[in-house]
């Protein structure tokens, strides 16, 4: 045969296989810590979670037992405050961006949201300290909630915007054509059509701040006891994990692991619960 297919040189073939192997290796290297973290977390956590852990407050150093009940409740309170403040404002900003902000002003808000998203959480903590703690003269759940709300808003705004933009303009026009006013269309048609996407965005923001510790250090501050007042230092799960992890006591280390497991379970179940609730609320044919 005068014509033959040119062979790919050995060097190139070796290179090809080597790089394929290398990228498979990177995947394994990345998955390794993930599995290590989860496995270790579950292994250490399950052994330490018991009824006392979930129902009692911390015991003084040296005494065995005790738990993080107040921190679990405290985290929930702080997150509730954060959601109450952050979710409506974030969704409102998202509606602004998609329905009123297809212009220069919208671009400014879009850019600022992206910038806010990149601000380190510890810096947000300083701001909440200045805004709330300095005025009230003491640490509080409210201050913690404000810090976390500031972190939630840009994420919620941007995902809400994207989800609303996915709703076809034809759907909006259908409502306008029926003589439905713009605000009603936006809330009852556009937002409702995008509900599941918007909620996913909210849960994303929620999950992101639920485990935050840095902005709570000097806002919620932490508390060894039960506290039911919004304007008093409040315990949070993540703060407690931090305090216990850097302490020199084995008993506290054990509880830190338990706390970490509970924290992750709370985050995952909150996200899952909302997902399921949303699924049940929508029609099968949709």
């Amino acid at each position, binding site marked *: 045969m005068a014509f033959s297919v040119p062979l790919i040189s050995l060097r*190139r*073939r070796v*290179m*090809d296989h*080597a*790089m394929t192997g290398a*990228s*498979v290796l*990177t*995947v394994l290297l*990345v998955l390794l*810590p*993930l599995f*290590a*973290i989860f496995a270790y977390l579950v292994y*250490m956590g399950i052994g330490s979670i018991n009824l006392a852990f979930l129902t009692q407050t911390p015991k003084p150093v040296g005494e065995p037992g005790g738990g993080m009940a107040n921190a679990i409740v405290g985290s929930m309170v702080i997150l509730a405050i954060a959601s109450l403040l952050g979710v409506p404002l974030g*969704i*409102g*900003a998202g*509606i*602004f961006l998609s*329905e*009123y902000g297809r212009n220069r002003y*919208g671009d400014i*808000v879009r850019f*600022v949201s*992206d*910038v*806010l*998203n*990149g*601000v*380190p959480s*510890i*810096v947000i*903590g*300083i*701001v909440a*300290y*200045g805004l709330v703690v300095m005025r009230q003269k003491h640490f509080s759940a409210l201050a913690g909630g404000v810090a976390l709300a*500031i972190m939630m808003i840009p994420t919620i705004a941007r995902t809400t915007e994207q989800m609303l933009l996915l709703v076809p*303009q034809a759907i909006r026009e259908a409502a306008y054509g029926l*003589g439905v*006013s*713009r*605000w009603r269309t936006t809330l009852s048609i556009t937002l409702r059509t995008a509900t599941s996407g918007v909620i996913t965005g909210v849960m994303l923001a929620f*999950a*992101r701040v*639920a*485990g*935050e*510790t*840095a902005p709570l250090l000097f806002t919620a*501050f932490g508390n060894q006891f039960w506290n039911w007042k919004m304007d008093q230092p409040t315990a949070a799960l*993540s703060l407690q994990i*931090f305090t216990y*992890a*850097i302490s020199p006591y084995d008993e506290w280390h054990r509880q830190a*692991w338990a706390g970490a497991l509970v924290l*992750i379970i709370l985050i995952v179940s909150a996200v899952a619960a909302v997902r399921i609730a949303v699924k049940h609320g929508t029609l099968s044919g949709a």
Partner: protein
Amino acid sequence: MSNQALPRPRFNAPEPERGSPEQGPKAALKIEARTTPLLDGKVSEIPDVFFGWVMRFCGVAVVALLGLIVYQLVVGSELSWHAFGWKFFVQSDWNPVEDQYGALPFIYGTIVSSVLALIIAVPLSVGVAVFITEMCPVGLRGILSFTTELLAAIPSVVYGLWAIFVLVPILREYVQPFLARTLGWTTLFSGPPYGIGMLAAGVILAIMIIPIISSITREVLTVVPQHQREAVLALGATRWEMIRMGVLRNARAGIVGAIILGLGRALGETMAVTMVIGNRPEIAKSLFAPGYTMASVLANEFTEATGDLYLSALIEIGLALFFVTIVVNALARLMVWSVTRGQPARSLA
């Protein structure tokens, strides 16, 4: 008929000849006589206007938040700025007892730990992204990207916890002695292997930023048009050559953007770093030595800062951190946009 009294302009409707509709082949359906309009009366425009302004207010609030952050930081750091000026950023003396504050050790620690994290994370995350977009069987793709994103959902404090009890011992027992033996001559890996220190901070940061870099790189790689790949393949390239020339080269700016975005996250990361870096405001050459970052000094000392100047110095560190991360993030966004912008934007009309 209601329109008979109206002025007739150029096109007048001809007189109707209602013939066919009445006698035409009637279909089975019969339309009942309409009832009177159910929705009558004036519609107020006020709710619409009000709603529009409430939404605009929410948009403005986002901008106001940023303004508020800047204001708080600038006002809070005024005292320290007046006391030290630019020297604040080049002095390495951090002494609360004598009210002397220099931020250099923290800046140094932040930069070194972040760069170290990038050195470890970049090859890994780009590798993962390339694997997922170019090599991975479709079935595995979803699972892999989900798992890498799961890494991003783990709270920072849990990473720190794991780092203290798992990563640090491993570094101390195995990695650091090995590095000291093989690369000790560079003086980067010398000194006693505590485990805790700059190296540990770099490694845990790397683990934390891999999901960010790889997911954005993945996004950028999928934007590279298929014909770019085919063009290179058609020249007889191997798969790796296709990836290198057809994919990576085209996505370069976006990948750099992803890396910078990862850097932005690493610079501001607080808890995990605070838990393993050793928290000593020193500038040491060895990566085994403890260090301190801007974020961790805030975490550790903010609530203990008794003097006004002390607090102000800390807030100034926060301000510096804020500006650096903003610049880094803006830069990264622009670079990612330059690649993904070509995508058809969803338009309203």
